[in-house]
């Protein structure tokens, strides 16, 4: 059995650590590229959401390298993600690949069942070993997200442009050559140290933008045209609440163990979006409000065309924009999206935010002198 799994941002790092630690034989799909997207677009229904296309492309590329089993997480709706596993299964079947799709459904409180399924995968590894591996993988997910957050902070302030990208991109490339959580954690720590040594201009006050939207498109650099890196390069500090580790800890671990979750976003969103409707719609609305309250200059919403929950969120955001006086730019991505047009809109938005900030400062002074 040679397992594979689709890409989603930096998730491959913690999945890799998990599979390494459990001695499961696997093939890491090549990083998402134009070819991946082409394969996906060819075989996935046109109106399906973009992440399904990309992930199928990943699986096909892994299949060509010899993978025969797919590892997917499931879900129970209402958004389409929970049914990806079945779409993959059907499409892979019709393509004649004979790939087996194993779905890990979120345990919904049934921890034993969840562990049993993992046990089956691992030729009956001991329960202690499994728990230990899960713990380390979670730790890595958190560390990788912290690392990314650090790049968000340093990038706009770096003195020598491109310094962060050089270290960070190298990390993402080289981490696949390591084996096991121990080595990976060490490498993360080293990278963090290197990042912290980058010379920064502390007097620089960057624009601050919050990133909200559908999880895949906001997390996955290929899909979002590395917008977070690009914004950093333009001297903008970005922040994003939704991350892989946040998803693992909030949705899987805390729900399984019935721990209290961090629901600040839900509370903030409630007057605008009363309930959970699937995907990350409530996060999108709620986090936009939190960003406004935290004094961010603007918010960018990113989602793939036809994404149902984000369409609901998009129609609500103008009200938040008005009530909280925070500009929101919505970017919708599909396989046809051209990079140039996309960044023209982003640049125009940044200009707008700069002008707003200057205006505010001038007004601030005026009021002061008026006093």
């Amino acid at each position: 059995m040679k397992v594979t799994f689709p890409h989603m941002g930096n998730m491959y790092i913690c999945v890799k650590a998990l599979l390494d630690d459990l001695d499961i034989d696997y093939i890491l799909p090549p990083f998402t590229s134009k070819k991946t997207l082409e394969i996906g677009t060819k075989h996935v229904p046109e109106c399906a959401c973009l992440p399904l296309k990309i992930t199928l492309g990943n699986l096909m590329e892994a299949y060509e390298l010899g993978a025969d089993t797919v590892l997917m997480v499931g879900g129970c709706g209402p958004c389409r993600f929970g049914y990806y596993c079945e779409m993959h299964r059907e499409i892979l079947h019709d393509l004649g690949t004979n790939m087996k799709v194993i779905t890990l459904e979120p345990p919904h409180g049934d921890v034993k069942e969840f562990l049993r399924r993992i046990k089956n995968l691992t030729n009956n590894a001991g329960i202690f070993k499994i728990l230990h591996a899960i713990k380390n993988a979670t730790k890595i997910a958190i560390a990788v997200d912290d690392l990314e957050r650090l790049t968000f902070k340093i990038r706009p302030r770096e003195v020598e442009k491109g310094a962060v990208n050089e270290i960070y991109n190298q990390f993402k490339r080289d981490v696949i050559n390591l084996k096991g959580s121990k080595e990976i954690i060490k490498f993360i720590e080293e990278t963090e140290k290197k990042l912290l040594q980058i010379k920064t201009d502390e007097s620089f006050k960057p624009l601050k933008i919050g990133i909200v939207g559908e999880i895949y498109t906001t997390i996955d650099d290929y899909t979002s045209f590395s917008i977070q890196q690009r914004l950093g390069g333009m001297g903008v500090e970005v922040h994003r609440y939704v991350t892989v580790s946040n998803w693992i800890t909030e949705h899987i671990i805390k729900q399984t163990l019935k721990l209290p979750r961090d629901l600040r976003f839900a509370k903030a969103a409630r007057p605008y979006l009363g309930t959970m409707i699937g995907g990350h719609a409530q996060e999108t609305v709620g986090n936009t409000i939190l960003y406004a309250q935290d004094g961010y200059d603007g918010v960018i919403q990113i989602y793939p065309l036809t994404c149902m929950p984000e369409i609901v969120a998009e129609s609500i955001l103008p009200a938040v924009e008005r009530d909280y006086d925070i500009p929101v730019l919505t970017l919708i991505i599909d396989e046809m999206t051209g990079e140039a047009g996309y960044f023209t809109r982003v640049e125009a938005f940044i200009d707008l935010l700069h002008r707003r900030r200057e205006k505010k400062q001038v007004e601030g002074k005026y009021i002061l002198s008026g006093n």
Partner: protein
Amino acid sequence: MSKKIGIPRGLFYYQFYPFWKSFFEELGAEIVVSDHTSRKILDEGVKKCVDEACLPVKIFFGHVENIKDKVDYLFLPRYTSVSKKEYVCPKFGGIPDMIRNTLSDLPEIIDTEINLRRTEKNALKAAIEIGRYFSDDNKAIKKAYKKALISYREFRQQVKKGIFPGELLDNSANRVQNRNKQNFSPIYDMINIKNEDKYKNNEDKYSEDKCDDKCNGDRSEEDNNLFNGKNRINSNMKLNIAVLGHGYNLYDSYCNMNALYKLRNLGANIITIDMIDENIINEKSNLLNKKTFWYFGSKIIGCAYHLLDRNDIDGIVYVMSFGCGIDSFICDLVERAIRRNKNIPFIILTIDEHTGEAGMDTRIEAFIDMIRWRKKYESDISSHGKHVYMCQSSAR
């Protein structure tokens, strides 16, 4: 003066209107339904709603605009789930919020959540919450709820006989609204009348098999088979076409540019998803490796599997709105199932606000022509084969 409650003629209107009509009437509220979908309603919806939304949601926005100034309350329940372990669609769950945050000058919105995902008992709970707007008497609300259930079941039962919900609702509900008929083509009226008559004639025949949705576990498949035996809609029509899709896409003739009536006019008997017994559909949808967690998903797939079991279906039409997240998956699964199992003609009619009627006509006609041609061709082959055989045998 009784309070006026506005119900937009969109989305679940085609499914649950009879329920709410009888519920609200029982509680003494006056119901105002928006006009039939028209260019004006569609344009209004397209203007107000985010571009990315699907056509039915845009149309729904138009309907809300159409009645919002005429009523005391807007009835926009949050349909999170109408069946166990299933959701409807994220947009259904978010529709009251989408409307509230997009349109202005709205009356009070009744947006009680209807969530039967865990238990169907929540239906009564939601009904009581809604009833509270019109009555303080819990007993009266419960009574209204029971009455509403009966109306609802009767309605579903009538649909099972082959009458489109749109027609039933037009005939029974707001006759006043019906005066405003300019939205319909002459075809519609013709068929509408024809159908009404047919229904009247057949009333006695049908009354015997009045049966509760819930208690017909022992009904044989034969009884539910619209095209076989006594329930055959019209035996001298030649083709049996099954139409799959969401109610609001199938029965809003403006939305689908009269697709169903066009099919009828080309000589097709039509069976839609709502005319097939729920038990059969549920049973079939359970055959999936992982049951879908969408109400529409399970229904449509279950229905498609059932259709593939039958040999009296000449073609399957899938009406889907462009950009529908659920259909993008379900329609694909249906298509795969059909391709794998049976060589039955299948067509997808995608509708959005830019779809041209001419293109739609051409596609429907071509589809029907193809089926007829195939039927003829196939029967030619067999008779031809026979003929050859006979020639040979006589030559010997």
